[in-house]
């Protein structure tokens, strides 16, 4: 229990740092020195100190948007087995709740964007509503695979301790597809290249960034924090999948986890540096690839098992 709380706090504190690491990787590829690693903390503090400007078109929903999306992301982290430790909360079927909770966050982010009456934000919202549909299908496909392997329906059963290694042992090679599918979902859900470009300068080409254009000050800080949490969640799952080893020593295990987690974030940064964003109408095909991978993994595994 105590350990879970410590790891949860650690996760929440480190999430911005890891996101900054992506910037560092991108700076390296661009031949720049880049902003300091603590940049995200500075930004958050700066935003927390500011006041806000609200659009005259907006209502209370606009203010609810950041709070609900952060709330969803924070609750999701509480169910996440950080570094293979038992999570703070866990129950049968919790993963369904978490996926729908992220949906709740998305609903309010979109609603907050629609509240501004801005055509750009509407455009971003329409895209934000579209791509995650395919992601959800992928995630449920993976969930079906994991369920048939373990007979359990909670994150803790897949990602704590030696459980993940067990998954590899029973399913073997087909499971190789799963981290890749997960990685594609990570890129999509967290608005990264090649689905979305967080650093672009043209509002027409944005998805997530354009939706939060009108948020400012502490409200914007809450949104940023929420997106750090969300990225941390997906990256942790990928990390546990590619590094399922148990060392017997909690400290060493945690260290290994946080190093591999860094590698996953590096991969995000590298992807962002070496490729361009897809044309908007190509994005669904890219995201569908993840579904196809998850589907194949499931079918092949079950063919072998049954």
């Amino acid at each position, binding site marked *: 229990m105590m350990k879970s709380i410590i790891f949860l706090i650690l996760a929440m504190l480190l999430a911005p740092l890891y996101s900054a690491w992506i910037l560092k990787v991108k700076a390296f590829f661009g031949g720049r020195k880049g902003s300091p690693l603590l940049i995200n903390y500075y930004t958050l503090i700066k935003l*927390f100190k*500011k*006041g*806000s*400007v609200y*659009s*005259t*078109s*907006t*209502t209370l*929903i606009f203010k609810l948007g950041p*709070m609900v999306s952060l*709330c969803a992301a*924070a*609750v999701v982290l*509480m169910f996440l087995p950080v570094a293979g430790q038992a999570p703070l*909360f866990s*129950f*049968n*079927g*919790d993963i*369904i*709740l978490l996926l*729908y*909770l992220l*949906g*709740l966050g998305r*609903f309010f982010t979109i*609603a907050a*964007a*629609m*509240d*501004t*009456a*801005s*055509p*750009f*934000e*509407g*455009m971003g*919202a*329409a895209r934000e*509503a*579209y791509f*995650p*549909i395919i992601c*959800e*299908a992928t995630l*449920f496909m993976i*969930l*079906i695979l994991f*369920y*048939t392997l373990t007979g359990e*329906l909670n994150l803790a059963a897949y990602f704590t301790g030696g459980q993940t290694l067990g998954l590899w042992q029973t399913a073997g090679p087909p499971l190789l597809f799963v981290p890749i599918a997960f990685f594609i979902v990570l890129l999509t859900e967290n608005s990264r290249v090649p689905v979305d470009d967080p650093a672009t300068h043209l509002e027409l080409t944005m998805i997530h960034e354009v939706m939060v*254009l009108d948020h400012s000050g*502490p409200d914007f800080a*809450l949104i940023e924090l929420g997106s750090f949490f969300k990225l941390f969640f997906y990256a942790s799952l990928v990390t546990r999948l590619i590094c399922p080893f148990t060392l017997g020593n909690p400290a060493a295990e945690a260290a290994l986890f946080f190093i591999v987690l860094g590698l996953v974030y590096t991969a995000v940064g590298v992807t962002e540096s070496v490729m361009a964003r897809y044309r908007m*109408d190509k994005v669904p095909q890219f995201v569908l690839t993840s579904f196809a991978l998850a589907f194949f993994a*499931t079918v092949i595994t*079950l063919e072998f098992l049954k």
Partner: protein
Amino acid sequence: MNLFFLALAFIFGGGLLSLMFWRQFVLMKIIGLIAIGGGCLLGLIDAGTKLYRPGPYSAVFDFLNAFSLSFKIDALSAFFLVTIYTICLLAALYSYHYMDKAQKALRTGGSYLFFAVLTASMALVVSANNLITFMLSWEIMSLSSFFLVVYNYEAEENRKAGYLYFVFTQVGAMFILAAFGLIYAHSGSLGFRDAAALPDTVKIIVFVLAFIGFGSKAGVFPLHVWLPHAHPAASSHISAVMSGVMIKTGIYGIIRIYMLLDWHIALFGHLVLIAGMISGILGVVYALGQHDLKRLLAYHSVENIGIILIGIGIGMLGVAAEKPVMALLGFAGGLLHVLNHAIFKSLLFMGAGMVLHQTGTRTIDLLGGLIKRMKITGTTFLVGSLAICGLPPLNGFVSEFLVYLGGFRGMALDKTSFAMCLLAIVSLAIIGGLALACFTKVVGVVFQGEPRSPVAENAAEKGLSMLIPMLVLAVACIVIGVFPTFFMTMALKAVASLELGYGQIPLVPFVALTGNITRAAALIFAVFLLILAIRKLLYQGKTVTRSGTWGCGFTKPTVKMQYTGSSYAAFILEFFKPVAPLTEDHPAVKERFPEKTYYHSHVSDIAELHMGSVVVRPVLTLFEKLRWLQHGDIHLYIGYILLAIVVLLFFV
């Protein structure tokens, strides 16, 4: 006299009295409200107690010594009765301010009468205990709702909608009659009970016929064509009742016939699951393409019927595979979704009714910014939207959660059933995502942003009796979402009366599931409150100013530049082009200074599109060929009658 029939008498009497007093407009409405509402309340109390009593209640009346009218209320009936009475009670209340056209007093009186008859007949349908009673109540229900659909018969489209509804409901009824006829032919009795003794092949035919018949009432794809026409035509409180509870009598019929046939093969489950998945996905896809608020909601009924059928289908597979937990999860999830959908869909239709009442338009792209002037309507509509998307901590999530859990249990079944459950889970995920897209569109375009037309600008909400039902339903959405245990045990009680042979169902494992949902909801609220407190702290003493929306450098934005519902949905609909063909109409932009232009788009429903060429035309051609039978010569017609009598006398 017992409470069940007393309630029905109140409701029916209320309808009659309202019509009698049509000259006193307000008095008529008060009588209607008190008698129908009071009857519903009595019925609700009665159904509630019957749900918890151990044995079923039954009553038999002989009618003209020809046949008997037989009623039996078991827990399944009681569950549906609770849903029916709750929604009808609130709809009766809603109608008080909604029906405010004093110049149409007689018509309003008629509408009260048919509303009362509809309510009573729905109650009779779910408590009927033999073939004839069921069919009789079913027809009364169909006819009374037909008259409610054509309430505004001046408009041609409403008459068309009524005609379409009439055709579908009667064709459906004929299928049910055919199924019942088969039961009667083989068992020789009108009783429900004897259906279990049919031969197996007949059972399959009966189930398929009944499924088609009940499916046309429930709005299962491709028999849903009447729904998006009839719901917008009817008054909003009637749409709420029709969409919220009347189409559920179709679901009731499917479950009842499954129970009566008492033959638990996987085939039935597969049939129901496939119908559920197709209805679910296509329903929400078509909903996304709609421009009319009530039509959009009507398509969402198709979607939710899909979800309910997925739940029931999973339950049937569970029964077939002798997996009680899976069966209970599927059936309980499906039944709970019946209640949940009744609640949030009525709420949404009432909200749409308020919008229609105050602005006079149902066109989504003409509205906007309504939540600022219609606070209660907007907020409750938002709650309903969250619930229909199945998001926690609201009621839609609870039932979908149970269905998901049931579906996952199906992973252990044989290949076909496994594949079905796999598809069901993925379909549910896709339906959830699409519903979210659809309702962010509705909330975003109708209630948020800036008004797109003068009518939207000047709208305000009025009418206490319209606001109270919406508030009650919104609260119900939250209460069921946070404390689902009580409502799930209600659904389980109903499942227990299906006599699946599980005996006393242990509640503990199921209560543990819903307990988790309650705890998770508490956690969500706690974290939210914490964030709220932090936010309040952060904004302490800060300067907060208001200014225009950031136009990305553009300084003269107009409300016309907002994203419309059509543009919002266009990107997603592109993906579903094969099943939802989009027709667009706009002139090409010419020259440097283009003239004023327009854009129309329409998403076609493939069932409606192909109905003409696949069903109607072949049937017409066939009848054309038989036309020589109808020659208009009265002598020969008398000859037909004679011939028929002779044939019947000598050969049957």
